[in-house]
Protein backbone atom coordinates (compact mmCIF):
# COMPACT_ATOMS: atom_id res chain seq x y z
CA UNK A 1 0.00 0.00 0.00
CA UNK A 2 1.42 3.36 -1.03
CA UNK A 3 1.46 5.60 1.93
CA UNK A 4 1.24 9.31 1.45
CA UNK A 5 1.32 10.99 4.79
CA UNK A 6 -0.53 14.09 5.74
CA UNK A 7 2.82 15.92 5.82
CA UNK A 8 3.60 14.76 2.28
CA UNK A 9 0.32 16.19 1.04
CA UNK A 10 0.92 19.41 2.93
CA UNK A 11 4.28 19.74 1.21
CA UNK A 12 2.80 18.99 -2.22
CA UNK A 13 0.06 21.54 -1.61
CA UNK A 14 2.69 24.10 -0.69
CA UNK A 15 4.61 23.34 -3.91
CA UNK A 16 1.38 23.62 -5.92
CA UNK A 17 0.45 26.88 -4.16
CA UNK A 18 -2.87 25.69 -2.75
CA UNK A 19 -3.77 26.41 0.87
CA UNK A 20 -5.48 23.39 2.40
CA UNK A 21 -7.51 22.98 5.52
CA UNK A 22 -6.75 20.19 8.00
CA UNK A 23 -9.73 18.20 6.83
CA UNK A 24 -8.72 18.60 3.19
CA UNK A 25 -5.24 17.29 4.01
CA UNK A 26 -6.64 14.30 5.90
CA UNK A 27 -9.08 13.49 3.14
CA UNK A 28 -6.54 13.83 0.32
CA UNK A 29 -3.83 11.78 1.99
CA UNK A 30 -6.25 8.86 2.27
CA UNK A 31 -7.54 9.25 -1.29
CA UNK A 32 -4.11 9.69 -2.85
CA UNK A 33 -2.82 6.53 -1.20
CA UNK A 34 -5.67 4.57 -2.79
CA UNK A 35 -5.23 6.22 -6.20
CA UNK A 36 -1.46 5.70 -6.18
CA UNK A 37 -1.94 2.03 -5.39
CA UNK A 38 -4.15 1.77 -8.46
CA UNK A 39 -1.85 3.66 -10.82
CA UNK A 40 1.44 2.17 -9.60
CA UNK A 41 0.66 -0.84 -11.83
CA UNK A 42 2.31 0.97 -14.73
CA UNK A 43 5.64 -0.08 -13.21
CA UNK A 44 4.86 -3.76 -13.88
CA UNK A 45 5.36 -3.39 -17.64
CA UNK A 46 7.58 -0.30 -17.92
CA UNK A 47 10.78 -2.16 -18.73
CA UNK A 48 14.08 -0.44 -19.49
CA UNK A 49 13.79 -1.50 -23.15
CA UNK A 50 10.52 0.44 -23.69
CA UNK A 51 11.03 3.99 -24.92
CA UNK A 52 8.78 6.64 -23.36
CA UNK A 53 6.15 8.55 -25.37
CA UNK A 54 5.53 12.11 -24.26
CA UNK A 55 3.32 13.08 -27.16
CA UNK A 56 1.27 11.30 -29.84
CA UNK A 57 2.82 13.20 -32.75
CA UNK A 58 6.49 12.83 -33.70
CA UNK A 59 6.99 16.60 -33.68
CA UNK A 60 10.14 18.58 -33.18
CA UNK A 61 9.96 22.21 -32.20
CA UNK A 62 7.70 24.06 -34.59
CA UNK A 63 8.79 27.54 -35.57
CA UNK A 64 7.02 30.25 -37.44
CA UNK A 65 8.53 33.20 -39.26
CA UNK A 66 9.29 36.12 -36.96
CA UNK A 67 6.92 38.58 -38.58
CA UNK A 68 5.01 41.50 -37.14
CA UNK A 69 1.30 40.74 -36.96
CA UNK A 70 -1.66 42.21 -35.15
CA UNK A 71 -2.21 41.11 -31.58
CA UNK A 72 -4.29 42.07 -28.57
CA UNK A 73 -4.38 45.74 -27.67
CA UNK A 74 -3.15 46.63 -24.16
CA UNK A 75 -6.78 47.23 -23.17
CA UNK A 76 -7.80 43.79 -24.41
CA UNK A 77 -4.83 42.10 -22.76
CA UNK A 78 -5.64 43.80 -19.46
CA UNK A 79 -9.40 43.29 -19.73
CA UNK A 80 -9.41 40.38 -17.30
CA UNK A 81 -6.79 41.72 -14.91
CA UNK A 82 -7.75 41.63 -11.22
CA UNK A 83 -5.92 44.95 -10.85
CA UNK A 84 -4.04 47.23 -13.22
CA UNK A 85 -2.05 50.43 -13.19
CA UNK A 86 -0.46 52.46 -16.00
CA UNK A 87 -1.30 49.85 -18.61
CA UNK A 88 0.34 47.11 -16.59
CA UNK A 89 -0.83 44.15 -14.51
CA UNK A 90 -0.78 45.24 -10.89
CA UNK A 91 0.34 42.35 -8.71
CA UNK A 92 0.98 41.84 -4.99
CA UNK A 93 4.52 42.10 -3.69
CA UNK A 94 6.60 39.27 -5.12
CA UNK A 95 9.90 39.64 -3.25
CA UNK A 96 10.37 39.93 0.50
CA UNK A 97 11.62 43.03 2.31
CA UNK A 98 15.25 41.88 2.28
Amino acid at each position, binding site marked *: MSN*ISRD*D*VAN*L*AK*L*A*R*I*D*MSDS*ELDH*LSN*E*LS*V*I*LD*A*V*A*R*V*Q*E*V*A*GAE*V*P*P*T*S*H*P*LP*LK*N*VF*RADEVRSS*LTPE*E*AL*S*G*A*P*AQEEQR*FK*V*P*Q*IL*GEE
Partner: protein
Amino acid sequence: MIKKTATEMASSLKAGEISSVELTQAHLDQIAKVDSEVHAFLYVDSEGAINQARAIDEKRKSGADLPPLAGVPLALKDVMTQKGIPTTCGSKMLEGWRPPYDSTVVTRLKENGVVILGKTNMDEFAMGSSTENSAYGPTHNPWDLTRIPGGSGGGSSAALAAFEAPLAIGTDTGGSIRQPAAVTGTVGVKPTYGGVSRYGLVAFSSSLDQAGPCARTVLDAAHLHEAIGGYDKLDSTSINAPIPPVVAAAKDGNVKGMKIGVIKELQGDGYQPGVLKLFNESLELLAQQGAEIVEVSCKYFDYALAAYYLIAPSECSSNLARFDAMRYGMRIGSGSAEDVMNLTRQAGFGREVKRRIILGTYALSSGYYDAYYGSAQKVRTLISRDFENAFKFADVLVSPTAPTTAFKIGEKANDPIAMYLNDIATIPTNLAGIGGMSLPSGLAEEDGLPAGFQIMAPAMQDDRMYKVGSALEAALLTKWGQPILASAPQLGAK
Protein backbone atom coordinates in the same frame (compact mmCIF):
# COMPACT_ATOMS: atom_id res chain seq x y z
CA MET B 1 -38.21 21.80 -36.49
CA ILE B 2 -35.88 21.49 -33.48
CA LYS B 3 -36.12 17.69 -33.64
CA LYS B 4 -34.73 17.54 -37.18
CA THR B 5 -31.10 16.82 -37.92
CA ALA B 6 -28.66 19.67 -38.52
CA THR B 7 -28.35 18.55 -42.13
CA GLU B 8 -32.13 18.78 -42.58
CA MET B 9 -32.17 22.20 -40.91
CA ALA B 10 -29.43 23.35 -43.28
CA SER B 11 -31.51 22.18 -46.27
CA SER B 12 -34.60 24.00 -45.01
CA LEU B 13 -32.56 27.16 -44.52
CA LYS B 14 -31.13 26.87 -48.02
CA ALA B 15 -34.56 26.27 -49.53
CA GLY B 16 -35.92 29.32 -47.74
CA GLU B 17 -38.50 27.30 -45.80
CA ILE B 18 -37.28 28.78 -42.55
CA SER B 19 -34.97 31.62 -41.59
CA SER B 20 -31.99 31.29 -39.28
CA VAL B 21 -33.63 33.81 -36.92
CA GLU B 22 -36.72 31.58 -36.67
CA LEU B 23 -34.59 28.46 -36.20
CA THR B 24 -32.41 30.13 -33.59
CA GLN B 25 -35.44 31.50 -31.74
CA ALA B 26 -37.02 28.04 -31.70
CA HIS B 27 -33.93 26.70 -29.95
CA LEU B 28 -33.79 29.62 -27.52
CA ASP B 29 -37.45 28.89 -26.72
CA GLN B 30 -36.62 25.24 -26.09
CA ILE B 31 -33.75 26.27 -23.80
CA ALA B 32 -36.13 28.54 -21.88
CA LYS B 33 -38.60 25.66 -21.63
CA VAL B 34 -36.37 22.79 -20.53
CA ASP B 35 -33.04 24.08 -19.27
CA SER B 36 -34.27 24.72 -15.74
CA GLU B 37 -34.61 20.92 -15.56
CA VAL B 38 -31.56 19.91 -17.61
CA HIS B 39 -29.06 22.68 -16.79
CA ALA B 40 -27.05 22.09 -19.94
CA PHE B 41 -26.12 25.76 -20.32
CA LEU B 42 -23.96 28.01 -18.15
CA TYR B 43 -24.58 31.02 -20.37
CA VAL B 44 -27.13 31.68 -23.10
CA ASP B 45 -26.22 34.43 -25.53
CA SER B 46 -29.73 35.10 -26.88
CA GLU B 47 -28.96 38.50 -28.30
CA GLY B 48 -25.65 37.49 -29.88
CA ALA B 49 -27.21 34.36 -31.39
CA ILE B 50 -30.11 36.27 -32.94
CA ASN B 51 -27.70 38.85 -34.31
CA GLN B 52 -25.54 36.14 -35.88
CA ALA B 53 -28.67 34.51 -37.33
CA ARG B 54 -29.92 37.79 -38.75
CA ALA B 55 -26.57 38.43 -40.44
CA ILE B 56 -26.72 34.99 -42.08
CA ASP B 57 -30.30 35.55 -43.23
CA GLU B 58 -29.30 38.84 -44.82
CA LYS B 59 -26.34 37.26 -46.58
CA ARG B 60 -28.56 34.50 -47.89
CA LYS B 61 -31.13 37.01 -49.13
CA SER B 62 -28.41 38.85 -51.02
CA GLY B 63 -27.72 35.63 -52.90
CA ALA B 64 -24.38 34.79 -51.29
CA ASP B 65 -23.11 31.23 -51.58
CA LEU B 66 -23.06 30.08 -47.96
CA PRO B 67 -21.20 27.18 -46.27
CA PRO B 68 -23.24 23.99 -45.58
CA LEU B 69 -24.00 24.72 -41.92
CA ALA B 70 -24.69 28.45 -42.27
CA GLY B 71 -27.52 29.52 -40.00
CA VAL B 72 -27.63 26.30 -37.95
CA PRO B 73 -27.37 26.81 -34.16
CA LEU B 74 -24.74 25.20 -31.94
CA ALA B 75 -23.89 24.86 -28.25
CA LEU B 76 -20.27 25.51 -27.26
CA LYS B 77 -18.53 23.75 -24.39
CA ASP B 78 -17.46 26.35 -21.85
CA VAL B 79 -13.80 25.37 -22.20
CA MET B 80 -13.52 27.19 -25.56
CA THR B 81 -12.89 30.91 -25.66
CA GLN B 82 -15.36 33.10 -27.49
CA LYS B 83 -14.47 36.78 -27.53
CA GLY B 84 -16.49 38.79 -25.01
CA ILE B 85 -18.56 35.79 -23.87
CA PRO B 86 -18.05 34.41 -20.34
CA THR B 87 -15.77 31.36 -20.31
CA THR B 88 -15.62 29.61 -16.94
CA CYS B 89 -14.51 26.01 -17.65
CA GLY B 90 -17.03 25.13 -14.95
CA SER B 91 -14.74 26.73 -12.37
CA LYS B 92 -15.11 29.52 -9.83
CA MET B 93 -11.56 30.45 -10.81
CA LEU B 94 -12.78 31.97 -14.08
CA GLU B 95 -16.17 33.25 -12.94
CA GLY B 96 -16.97 36.42 -14.86
CA TRP B 97 -13.94 36.19 -17.15
CA ARG B 98 -14.65 37.34 -20.70
CA PRO B 99 -11.81 36.28 -22.99
CA PRO B 100 -10.41 38.94 -25.32
CA TYR B 101 -10.05 36.54 -28.26
CA ASP B 102 -11.79 33.75 -30.17
CA SER B 103 -10.52 30.18 -30.15
CA THR B 104 -9.77 28.85 -33.65
CA VAL B 105 -12.80 26.55 -33.37
CA VAL B 106 -15.00 29.60 -32.74
CA THR B 107 -13.34 31.54 -35.57
CA ARG B 108 -14.13 28.67 -37.92
CA LEU B 109 -17.69 28.33 -36.65
CA LYS B 110 -18.20 32.02 -37.35
CA GLU B 111 -16.63 31.71 -40.79
CA ASN B 112 -19.06 28.89 -41.48
CA GLY B 113 -22.02 30.95 -40.32
CA VAL B 114 -22.81 28.61 -37.44
CA VAL B 115 -24.91 30.39 -34.80
CA ILE B 116 -23.49 30.02 -31.27
CA LEU B 117 -26.33 29.79 -28.74
CA GLY B 118 -24.24 29.78 -25.58
CA LYS B 119 -21.81 27.92 -23.38
CA THR B 120 -22.44 24.46 -21.97
CA ASN B 121 -21.77 23.02 -18.54
CA MET B 122 -18.82 20.73 -17.86
CA ASP B 123 -16.77 19.17 -15.11
CA GLU B 124 -14.38 21.79 -13.79
CA PHE B 125 -11.51 22.21 -16.27
CA ALA B 126 -12.84 19.08 -18.02
CA MET B 127 -11.84 16.80 -15.15
CA GLY B 128 -14.58 14.27 -14.59
CA SER B 129 -16.99 11.81 -16.15
CA SER B 130 -20.31 13.09 -14.86
CA THR B 131 -20.42 16.93 -14.98
CA GLU B 132 -20.94 16.75 -11.21
CA ASN B 133 -17.60 18.53 -10.74
CA SER B 134 -18.93 21.77 -12.21
CA ALA B 135 -18.76 24.62 -9.71
CA TYR B 136 -22.16 25.70 -11.05
CA GLY B 137 -24.09 22.53 -10.25
CA PRO B 138 -24.60 19.32 -12.22
CA THR B 139 -26.28 18.83 -15.59
CA HIS B 140 -29.14 16.32 -15.64
CA ASN B 141 -29.48 13.56 -18.23
CA PRO B 142 -32.58 14.24 -20.38
CA TRP B 143 -33.34 10.49 -20.36
CA ASP B 144 -33.65 10.50 -16.57
CA LEU B 145 -33.10 13.75 -14.71
CA THR B 146 -31.79 11.92 -11.64
CA ARG B 147 -28.86 10.59 -13.68
CA ILE B 148 -25.58 12.03 -14.97
CA PRO B 149 -25.24 13.12 -18.63
CA GLY B 150 -21.63 11.93 -18.75
CA GLY B 151 -18.61 14.14 -18.53
CA SER B 152 -16.76 16.20 -18.83
CA GLY B 153 -18.91 17.44 -21.71
CA GLY B 154 -22.26 16.61 -20.14
CA GLY B 155 -23.71 20.01 -20.99
CA SER B 156 -23.07 19.58 -24.69
CA SER B 157 -24.47 16.05 -24.84
CA ALA B 158 -27.52 16.94 -22.74
CA ALA B 159 -28.23 19.99 -24.92
CA LEU B 160 -28.36 17.70 -27.98
CA ALA B 161 -30.54 15.08 -26.31
CA ALA B 162 -32.94 17.75 -25.00
CA PHE B 163 -33.19 19.35 -28.48
CA GLU B 164 -31.75 22.61 -27.15
CA ALA B 165 -29.20 22.53 -29.98
CA PRO B 166 -28.69 20.30 -33.04
CA LEU B 167 -24.90 20.56 -32.85
CA ALA B 168 -22.35 21.06 -30.09
CA ILE B 169 -18.63 21.30 -29.54
CA GLY B 170 -16.92 19.01 -27.08
CA THR B 171 -13.36 18.31 -26.00
CA ASP B 172 -12.02 14.87 -25.27
CA THR B 173 -8.98 14.20 -23.07
CA GLY B 174 -9.95 10.71 -21.90
CA GLY B 175 -13.47 10.30 -23.26
CA SER B 176 -15.19 13.61 -22.53
CA ILE B 177 -16.89 13.72 -25.94
CA ARG B 178 -17.61 10.02 -26.38
CA GLN B 179 -18.81 8.90 -22.94
CA PRO B 180 -21.38 11.74 -22.68
CA ALA B 181 -22.55 10.85 -26.19
CA ALA B 182 -22.93 7.20 -25.14
CA VAL B 183 -25.04 7.88 -22.05
CA THR B 184 -27.32 10.42 -23.75
CA GLY B 185 -28.04 8.58 -27.02
CA THR B 186 -26.10 11.06 -29.15
CA VAL B 187 -23.05 11.00 -31.45
CA GLY B 188 -19.62 12.29 -30.45
CA VAL B 189 -16.30 12.20 -32.25
CA LYS B 190 -12.78 12.67 -30.94
CA PRO B 191 -10.79 13.38 -34.11
CA THR B 192 -7.17 12.33 -34.53
CA TYR B 193 -4.98 14.34 -32.16
CA GLY B 194 -3.96 17.47 -34.05
CA GLY B 195 -6.98 17.26 -36.36
CA VAL B 196 -8.79 20.21 -34.78
CA SER B 197 -6.91 23.22 -33.42
CA ARG B 198 -6.43 23.57 -29.65
CA TYR B 199 -5.87 27.33 -29.89
CA GLY B 200 -8.25 28.92 -27.40
CA LEU B 201 -9.12 25.60 -25.79
CA VAL B 202 -8.28 26.03 -22.10
CA ALA B 203 -5.62 23.38 -21.56
CA PHE B 204 -6.09 20.42 -19.22
CA SER B 205 -3.67 17.80 -20.53
CA SER B 206 -2.09 19.16 -23.68
CA SER B 207 -0.80 15.92 -25.17
CA LEU B 208 -4.29 14.36 -24.86
CA ASP B 209 -6.82 17.22 -25.29
CA GLN B 210 -8.73 17.18 -28.57
CA ALA B 211 -11.78 19.18 -29.59
CA GLY B 212 -14.41 17.57 -31.75
CA PRO B 213 -17.99 17.51 -33.00
CA CYS B 214 -21.08 16.41 -31.04
CA ALA B 215 -24.38 15.84 -32.88
CA ARG B 216 -27.44 13.63 -33.13
CA THR B 217 -26.38 11.88 -36.35
CA VAL B 218 -23.12 10.73 -37.89
CA LEU B 219 -23.56 12.92 -40.97
CA ASP B 220 -24.23 16.00 -38.83
CA ALA B 221 -21.04 15.29 -36.89
CA ALA B 222 -19.15 14.96 -40.18
CA HIS B 223 -20.35 18.35 -41.41
CA LEU B 224 -19.29 19.95 -38.13
CA HIS B 225 -15.95 18.10 -38.22
CA GLU B 226 -15.18 19.56 -41.66
CA ALA B 227 -16.21 23.02 -40.49
CA ILE B 228 -13.88 23.14 -37.48
CA GLY B 229 -11.04 20.83 -38.53
CA GLY B 230 -7.79 21.29 -40.39
CA TYR B 231 -4.42 22.91 -40.00
CA ASP B 232 -4.03 25.98 -37.82
CA LYS B 233 -0.74 27.81 -37.61
CA LEU B 234 -1.72 29.07 -34.15
CA ASP B 235 -1.48 25.52 -32.76
CA SER B 236 2.00 24.03 -33.06
CA THR B 237 0.57 20.51 -32.66
CA SER B 238 -1.94 20.96 -35.46
CA ILE B 239 -1.45 18.48 -38.30
CA ASN B 240 -0.60 20.15 -41.60
CA ALA B 241 -2.63 17.90 -43.87
CA PRO B 242 -6.08 17.97 -45.45
CA ILE B 243 -9.06 17.01 -43.26
CA PRO B 244 -9.95 13.36 -43.91
CA PRO B 245 -13.03 13.18 -46.20
CA VAL B 246 -15.48 12.57 -43.37
CA VAL B 247 -18.65 13.93 -45.00
CA ALA B 248 -18.13 11.79 -48.10
CA ALA B 249 -17.51 8.77 -45.86
CA ALA B 250 -20.66 9.42 -43.82
CA LYS B 251 -22.70 9.67 -47.03
CA ASP B 252 -21.11 6.51 -48.40
CA GLY B 253 -21.61 4.17 -45.43
CA ASN B 254 -20.57 1.08 -47.36
CA VAL B 255 -18.77 -1.42 -45.12
CA LYS B 256 -18.70 -4.33 -47.52
CA GLY B 257 -15.35 -6.05 -47.18
CA MET B 258 -14.17 -3.87 -44.32
CA LYS B 259 -12.49 -5.63 -41.43
CA ILE B 260 -13.85 -4.67 -38.02
CA GLY B 261 -11.69 -5.64 -35.06
CA VAL B 262 -13.33 -6.35 -31.71
CA ILE B 263 -10.90 -5.59 -28.91
CA LYS B 264 -10.91 -8.56 -26.58
CA GLU B 265 -9.75 -6.53 -23.58
CA LEU B 266 -12.60 -4.00 -23.82
CA GLN B 267 -15.48 -6.25 -22.84
CA GLY B 268 -16.38 -8.79 -20.20
CA ASP B 269 -15.91 -8.09 -16.50
CA GLY B 270 -17.08 -4.66 -15.42
CA TYR B 271 -19.31 -4.16 -18.46
CA GLN B 272 -23.07 -4.07 -17.96
CA PRO B 273 -24.68 -7.13 -19.65
CA GLY B 274 -27.25 -5.00 -21.49
CA VAL B 275 -24.51 -2.77 -22.88
CA LEU B 276 -22.60 -5.83 -24.14
CA LYS B 277 -25.75 -7.29 -25.66
CA LEU B 278 -26.38 -4.12 -27.66
CA PHE B 279 -22.72 -4.09 -28.72
CA ASN B 280 -22.97 -7.62 -30.06
CA GLU B 281 -26.24 -6.86 -31.87
CA SER B 282 -24.52 -3.92 -33.55
CA LEU B 283 -21.68 -6.18 -34.66
CA GLU B 284 -24.23 -8.53 -36.14
CA LEU B 285 -25.81 -5.69 -38.13
CA LEU B 286 -22.41 -4.68 -39.50
CA ALA B 287 -21.70 -8.29 -40.45
CA GLN B 288 -25.04 -8.46 -42.28
CA GLN B 289 -23.89 -5.51 -44.37
CA GLY B 290 -20.80 -7.37 -45.49
CA ALA B 291 -18.22 -6.34 -42.91
CA GLU B 292 -15.89 -9.00 -41.63
CA ILE B 293 -15.72 -9.19 -37.84
CA VAL B 294 -12.39 -10.27 -36.37
CA GLU B 295 -11.14 -10.39 -32.80
CA VAL B 296 -7.95 -8.59 -31.84
CA SER B 297 -6.00 -8.43 -28.62
CA CYS B 298 -4.47 -5.31 -27.09
CA LYS B 299 -2.88 -6.75 -24.00
CA TYR B 300 -1.50 -3.51 -22.57
CA PHE B 301 -4.92 -1.81 -22.52
CA ASP B 302 -5.28 -3.14 -18.98
CA TYR B 303 -2.68 -0.55 -18.01
CA ALA B 304 -4.15 2.38 -19.96
CA LEU B 305 -6.30 3.74 -17.15
CA ALA B 306 -3.38 3.75 -14.72
CA ALA B 307 -1.12 5.50 -17.25
CA TYR B 308 -3.80 8.07 -18.01
CA TYR B 309 -4.34 8.93 -14.35
CA LEU B 310 -0.64 9.72 -14.09
CA ILE B 311 -0.13 11.54 -17.40
CA ALA B 312 -3.26 13.71 -17.30
CA PRO B 313 -2.76 14.90 -13.68
CA SER B 314 0.94 15.52 -14.35
CA GLU B 315 0.19 17.71 -17.34
CA CYS B 316 -2.69 19.40 -15.51
CA SER B 317 -0.55 20.26 -12.51
CA SER B 318 1.68 22.17 -14.89
CA ASN B 319 -1.07 23.65 -17.11
CA LEU B 320 -3.17 24.93 -14.22
CA ALA B 321 -0.20 26.76 -12.71
CA ARG B 322 -1.33 29.61 -14.99
CA PHE B 323 -4.21 30.31 -12.62
CA ASP B 324 -2.07 32.36 -10.31
CA ALA B 325 -4.41 35.32 -9.60
CA MET B 326 -2.09 37.74 -11.37
CA ARG B 327 -3.33 38.44 -14.90
CA TYR B 328 -6.92 37.21 -15.11
CA GLY B 329 -9.46 35.22 -13.18
CA MET B 330 -10.08 35.19 -9.45
CA ARG B 331 -7.87 37.02 -6.94
CA ILE B 332 -8.40 36.57 -3.23
CA GLY B 333 -6.55 37.92 -0.23
CA SER B 334 -3.78 40.43 0.26
CA GLY B 335 -0.18 40.21 1.39
CA SER B 336 2.56 38.64 -0.70
CA ALA B 337 1.99 37.24 -4.17
CA GLU B 338 2.52 33.77 -2.75
CA ASP B 339 -0.17 34.28 -0.10
CA VAL B 340 -2.58 35.52 -2.74
CA MET B 341 -1.87 32.53 -4.98
CA ASN B 342 -2.35 30.08 -2.11
CA LEU B 343 -5.66 31.60 -1.05
CA THR B 344 -6.98 32.08 -4.56
CA ARG B 345 -6.20 28.53 -5.63
CA GLN B 346 -7.74 27.17 -2.45
CA ALA B 347 -10.97 29.06 -3.07
CA GLY B 348 -11.02 28.87 -6.86
CA PHE B 349 -10.42 25.16 -7.48
CA GLY B 350 -12.85 22.37 -6.61
CA ARG B 351 -12.05 19.05 -5.01
CA GLU B 352 -11.31 16.98 -8.13
CA VAL B 353 -9.06 19.65 -9.61
CA LYS B 354 -7.06 19.90 -6.39
CA ARG B 355 -6.84 16.11 -6.18
CA ARG B 356 -5.38 15.93 -9.68
CA ILE B 357 -2.99 18.84 -9.23
CA ILE B 358 -1.60 17.23 -6.07
CA LEU B 359 -1.39 13.80 -7.71
CA GLY B 360 0.40 15.32 -10.72
CA THR B 361 2.75 17.30 -8.52
CA TYR B 362 3.63 14.07 -6.73
CA ALA B 363 4.11 12.08 -9.96
CA LEU B 364 6.45 14.72 -11.34
CA SER B 365 8.46 15.29 -8.17
CA SER B 366 12.08 14.23 -8.04
CA GLY B 367 12.46 10.75 -6.65
CA TYR B 368 9.07 9.64 -7.99
CA TYR B 369 9.25 10.92 -11.58
CA ASP B 370 10.72 7.75 -13.13
CA ALA B 371 8.51 5.39 -11.16
CA TYR B 372 5.26 7.17 -11.97
CA TYR B 373 5.30 9.67 -14.85
CA GLY B 374 8.21 7.95 -16.61
CA SER B 375 6.58 4.52 -16.36
CA ALA B 376 3.27 5.92 -17.59
CA GLN B 377 5.02 7.32 -20.67
CA LYS B 378 6.38 3.86 -21.40
CA VAL B 379 2.91 2.36 -21.10
CA ARG B 380 1.82 4.97 -23.62
CA THR B 381 4.33 3.50 -26.07
CA LEU B 382 3.01 -0.01 -25.40
CA ILE B 383 -0.59 1.12 -26.00
CA SER B 384 0.38 2.72 -29.33
CA ARG B 385 2.14 -0.49 -30.35
CA ASP B 386 -0.98 -2.48 -29.43
CA PHE B 387 -3.02 -0.27 -31.76
CA GLU B 388 -0.45 -0.49 -34.57
CA ASN B 389 -0.50 -4.24 -34.32
CA ALA B 390 -4.30 -4.45 -34.15
CA PHE B 391 -4.69 -2.26 -37.22
CA LYS B 392 -2.68 -4.83 -39.19
CA PHE B 393 -5.69 -7.11 -38.83
CA ALA B 394 -8.57 -4.62 -38.99
CA ASP B 395 -9.55 -1.36 -40.71
CA VAL B 396 -11.29 -0.07 -37.60
CA LEU B 397 -11.47 -1.28 -34.00
CA VAL B 398 -14.65 -1.34 -31.94
CA SER B 399 -15.81 -1.64 -28.35
CA PRO B 400 -18.63 -0.45 -26.11
CA THR B 401 -17.97 3.27 -25.46
CA ALA B 402 -18.59 3.15 -21.72
CA PRO B 403 -18.96 0.07 -19.54
CA THR B 404 -22.37 1.11 -18.17
CA THR B 405 -25.34 3.33 -18.90
CA ALA B 406 -25.79 6.60 -17.01
CA PHE B 407 -25.51 6.23 -13.24
CA LYS B 408 -27.32 8.27 -10.60
CA ILE B 409 -26.10 11.74 -9.71
CA GLY B 410 -24.11 11.39 -6.49
CA GLU B 411 -23.63 7.65 -6.83
CA LYS B 412 -19.88 7.73 -7.50
CA ALA B 413 -19.04 11.23 -6.32
CA ASN B 414 -17.04 9.96 -3.34
CA ASP B 415 -15.26 7.13 -5.10
CA PRO B 416 -12.68 8.52 -7.55
CA ILE B 417 -11.54 5.08 -8.71
CA ALA B 418 -15.09 3.97 -9.57
CA MET B 419 -15.58 7.25 -11.42
CA TYR B 420 -12.33 6.84 -13.35
CA LEU B 421 -13.42 3.36 -14.56
CA ASN B 422 -16.04 5.03 -16.79
CA ASP B 423 -13.26 5.97 -19.17
CA ILE B 424 -11.66 2.55 -19.41
CA ALA B 425 -12.63 2.03 -23.07
CA THR B 426 -12.12 5.59 -24.29
CA ILE B 427 -8.70 6.39 -22.78
CA PRO B 428 -6.49 4.20 -25.04
CA THR B 429 -7.28 6.31 -28.13
CA ASN B 430 -6.26 9.51 -26.35
CA LEU B 431 -2.97 7.97 -25.25
CA ALA B 432 -2.23 6.89 -28.84
CA GLY B 433 -3.58 10.10 -30.41
CA ILE B 434 -5.93 8.30 -32.79
CA GLY B 435 -9.59 9.00 -33.55
CA GLY B 436 -12.63 7.60 -31.77
CA MET B 437 -16.37 7.91 -32.34
CA SER B 438 -19.36 6.98 -30.22
CA LEU B 439 -22.84 6.46 -31.60
CA PRO B 440 -25.95 5.02 -29.95
CA SER B 441 -26.26 1.23 -29.99
CA GLY B 442 -29.71 1.15 -28.36
CA LEU B 443 -31.37 1.08 -24.95
CA ALA B 444 -30.05 -1.39 -22.41
CA GLU B 445 -32.60 -3.97 -21.34
CA GLU B 446 -31.91 -3.55 -17.60
CA ASP B 447 -32.74 0.15 -17.37
CA GLY B 448 -33.97 1.40 -20.75
CA LEU B 449 -31.07 3.86 -20.96
CA PRO B 450 -28.86 4.54 -23.99
CA ALA B 451 -25.52 2.81 -24.58
CA GLY B 452 -22.73 3.69 -26.99
CA PHE B 453 -20.83 1.83 -29.70
CA GLN B 454 -17.24 3.03 -30.12
CA ILE B 455 -15.32 2.98 -33.41
CA MET B 456 -11.58 3.72 -33.54
CA ALA B 457 -9.47 4.38 -36.62
CA PRO B 458 -5.75 4.93 -37.26
CA ALA B 459 -4.40 8.49 -37.12
CA MET B 460 -5.77 10.71 -39.90
CA GLN B 461 -8.08 7.92 -41.15
CA ASP B 462 -11.06 9.49 -39.36
CA ASP B 463 -13.21 8.91 -42.44
CA ARG B 464 -13.24 5.17 -41.68
CA MET B 465 -15.11 5.81 -38.42
CA TYR B 466 -17.72 7.85 -40.25
CA LYS B 467 -18.18 5.18 -42.88
CA VAL B 468 -18.74 2.44 -40.31
CA GLY B 469 -20.74 4.70 -38.00
CA SER B 470 -23.03 5.73 -40.82
CA ALA B 471 -23.60 2.11 -41.86
CA LEU B 472 -24.48 1.06 -38.32
CA GLU B 473 -26.67 4.10 -37.74
CA ALA B 474 -28.68 3.37 -40.89
CA ALA B 475 -29.12 -0.31 -39.97
CA LEU B 476 -30.26 0.61 -36.46
CA LEU B 477 -32.67 3.21 -37.77
CA THR B 478 -34.25 0.59 -40.00
CA LYS B 479 -34.46 -1.81 -37.07
CA TRP B 480 -35.99 0.74 -34.65
CA GLY B 481 -38.17 2.58 -37.17
CA GLN B 482 -37.26 5.90 -35.54
CA PRO B 483 -34.23 7.70 -34.09
CA ILE B 484 -33.28 6.67 -30.56
CA LEU B 485 -34.13 10.10 -29.11
CA ALA B 486 -37.76 9.66 -30.17
CA SER B 487 -38.00 7.31 -27.16
CA ALA B 488 -36.66 9.91 -24.70
CA PRO B 489 -39.13 11.35 -22.18
CA GLN B 490 -40.80 14.69 -22.84
CA LEU B 491 -39.26 17.57 -20.91
CA GLY B 492 -40.59 20.94 -19.88
CA ALA B 493 -43.95 19.79 -18.54
CA LYS B 494 -43.31 21.75 -15.37
